[in-house]
């Protein structure tokens, strides 16, 4: 068996062995709930918006229900697998009330099967990334295939940033050969919206090459049709969920901004959360005008995504997966940057966020779970966890900054030498 296939099969085996037993209740719960609604033909955005209005009315605060706030296409990656699950297990409830802080009720024996089914798109995305990387460098493919961080995000938590990573990688790989496909894959990478910061880069690179530009935009537009449909069908809901919620989120995550979590004053927090936006716009403008057209595409994408990781308001633990394949392809970047978000997971997440199903199988395990969760909450309440969380957040931002500087320096060198070649005198 050739090594490429062996790596892919091993990566699949590791993931399938873990997938049935763990989950992030909030995110898997959202996908489960949204898959059910999609199969019933219900409007997911109307549901999320209604919940938000209900919460805002009850609390008098600008709070949002954290449900399905993604590209409409995303759910169509999962809903077919949920449908397959219902063919086997029926349509009875398997996970009841999984939204934080409610602890979900899980129905056995179907929970492990549901988890495997809902994680299949993520596992397939991971395997395709491994396959593509192995075609270029088997060492890099192995790093991705067996990186504890990537495995944790995909099959322990069940988060789908691997899909974003796959499509971003694909968009980059085909960009020199097929602009339509590049645009299509880039459009699909918007499943989680944050790669939208790359759009000005693609536009400026293709600006003036009108045929290539039209092809790229054609591919991209195709993926945006579902958004347009929902904007026509329920404009208020879609605007609230995709724009207002995502645009006015409270800053924080694995970054230098998570200090805001200890400032318990939501209107103030939201006002301060606008500060990084200003720097993000400045950084994007600088990087795109300085390097956008001249620098290699890989380094340009990474530089912009690094700028987003530095000045984007919300950088959750899983976001790095989306650019991890590209980081592996770049000679300038240090891929070990994954360690920081991986450590952060264990500092930030209550027990509610992982290990659930395996501990839910017996009242004894469940008792242990509740005791452990209680200890975690006490540590959280007195503020012991906030200090290492902040330290890790700042460290991650600095590591990203270091990588950004390396990419920019190297790119500057490429641009200078290219200019010297074209202008020998």
């Amino acid at each position, binding site marked *: 068996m050739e090594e490429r296939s062996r790596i892919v099969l091993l990566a699949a085996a590791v993931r399938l062995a873990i997938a049935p037993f763990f989950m992030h209740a909030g995110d898997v719960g959202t996908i489960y709930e949204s898959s059910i609604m999609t199969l019933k033909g219900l409007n997911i955005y109307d549901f999320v918006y209604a919940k938000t209005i209900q*919460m805002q*009315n*009850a*609390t*008098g*605060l600008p*709070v949002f229900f954290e449900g399905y706030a993604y590209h409409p296409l995303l759910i169509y990656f999962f809903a077919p697998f949920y449908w397959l699950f219902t063919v086997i297990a029926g349509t009875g409830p398997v996970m009841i009330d999984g939204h934080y*802080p409610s602890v979900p009720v899980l129905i056995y024996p179907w929970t492990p099967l549901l988890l495997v089914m809902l994680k299949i798109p993520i596992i397939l995305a991971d395997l395709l990334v491994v396959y593509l990387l192995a075609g270029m460098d088997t060492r890099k493919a192995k790093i991705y295939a067996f990186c504890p961080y990537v495995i944790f995000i995909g099959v322990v938590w069940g988060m789908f940033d691997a899909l974003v990573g796959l499509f971003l990688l694909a968009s980059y790989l085909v960009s020199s050969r097929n602009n339509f496909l590049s645009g299509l894959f880039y459009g699909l990478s918007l499943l989680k919206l944050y790669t939208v910061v790359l759009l000005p880069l693609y536009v400026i690179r293709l600006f003036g090459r009108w045929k290539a530009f039209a092809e790229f935009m054609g591919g991209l537009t195709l993926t945006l049709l579902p958004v347009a449909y929902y904007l026509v069908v329920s404009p208020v809901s879609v605007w609230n969920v995709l724009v207002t919620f995502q645009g006015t989120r409270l800053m924080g995550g694995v970054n*230098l*901004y998570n*200090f*805001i979590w*200890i*400032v*318990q*004053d*939501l*209107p*103030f*927090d939201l006002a*301060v959360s606008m*500060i990084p936006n200003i*720097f993000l716009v400045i950084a994007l403008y600088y990087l795109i005008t300085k390097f956008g057209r001249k620098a290699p595409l890989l380094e340009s994408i990474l530089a912009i995504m690094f700028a987003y990781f*530095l000045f984007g308001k919300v950088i959750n633990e899983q976001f790095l997966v989306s650019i991890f394949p590209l980081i592996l392809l770049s000679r300038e970047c240090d891929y070990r940057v994954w360690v920081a978000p991986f450590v952060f997971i264990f500092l930030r997440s209550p027990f509610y966020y992982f290990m659930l199903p395996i501990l839910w199988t017996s009242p004894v395990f469940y008792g242990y779970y509740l005791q452990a969760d209680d200890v975690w*909450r006490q540590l959280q*309440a*007195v*503020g*012991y966890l*906030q*200090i290492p969380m*902040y*330290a890790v957040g*700042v*460290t991650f*931002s*600095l590591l990203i*900054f*270091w990588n950004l*500087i390396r990419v920019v320096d190297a790119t500057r060198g490429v641009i200078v030498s290219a200019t010297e070649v074209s202008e020998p005198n």
Partner: protein
Amino acid sequence: MTVYFVVYIVALSFVPLIHDTLLAQSRWLGYGTGAYQYQNQNYFILFNDPYDGSSKPHIHVNPGFAPAARISLLEFSDWTSWLNDHNLFNEFNVTIRASPQVLDVAYSRPEIVIHKYVEASSESVKVTLQSEKEFTAHLELWRWVMTSINGISIADTTKPLVITPTTLIEFTFEDERLQSVGRGRILLSAMPSQVEIWPHEKGFNRITIDFVNSMMSLTVSGSMEAVGTPSPTWNYALLPYVLPIVAVTVVALYLLVVKYGRTFKNRATRRSS
């Protein structure tokens, strides 16, 4: 560029401290998914615990000798309180609105709307229940634990005890961590129909108050005094002071690694070549 960025990190790390000292005092602040808090020189009040919806409100006292410490004084529990025989937590629609000084919590059912107003001053915290119609109330106020209530200690009773109805309830408590004793008092605006105290191991953990009225206010106050010499203790309220230190430390380590790490690497490379 590096200098600008590390200055940015350090500057932002002071935001919690600036907020805490300049903006957070003596006004209601909302956060999370519907929690509210109020802090003044003497009291810290939490309303609607973000984890489980308890604490409505939970009044803490800040001892003069340890201002950052938040010592539980009294918790009003919606989980275990009833208005017109309906549980406050589960059987009412609740909406919260805050002005800087007053938190207005409206409990509504088809037949009645009852407001719970929470107001704090430097002397006390006033919790008022008010409706346009008369209502029956069974309120439960918790603390783990009160060593005595209106002069009655755990030595006097091992069973729940109905005490003489009164508009003034005084209790004492201890805090081992701060080696201190505390006093609390609850002043009622009208005579209740029944007051009952509930023993639990080393003291009383609950006071239940029953009344029929269209308005009742409970004015809660408390104070603490050190008995021994309390050792310095960590508290959540100290976090705003710690984060700038963390930021400076991490940034300094980064700068050291970038500077000397590269020099060390260059030396190692030269030696090996």
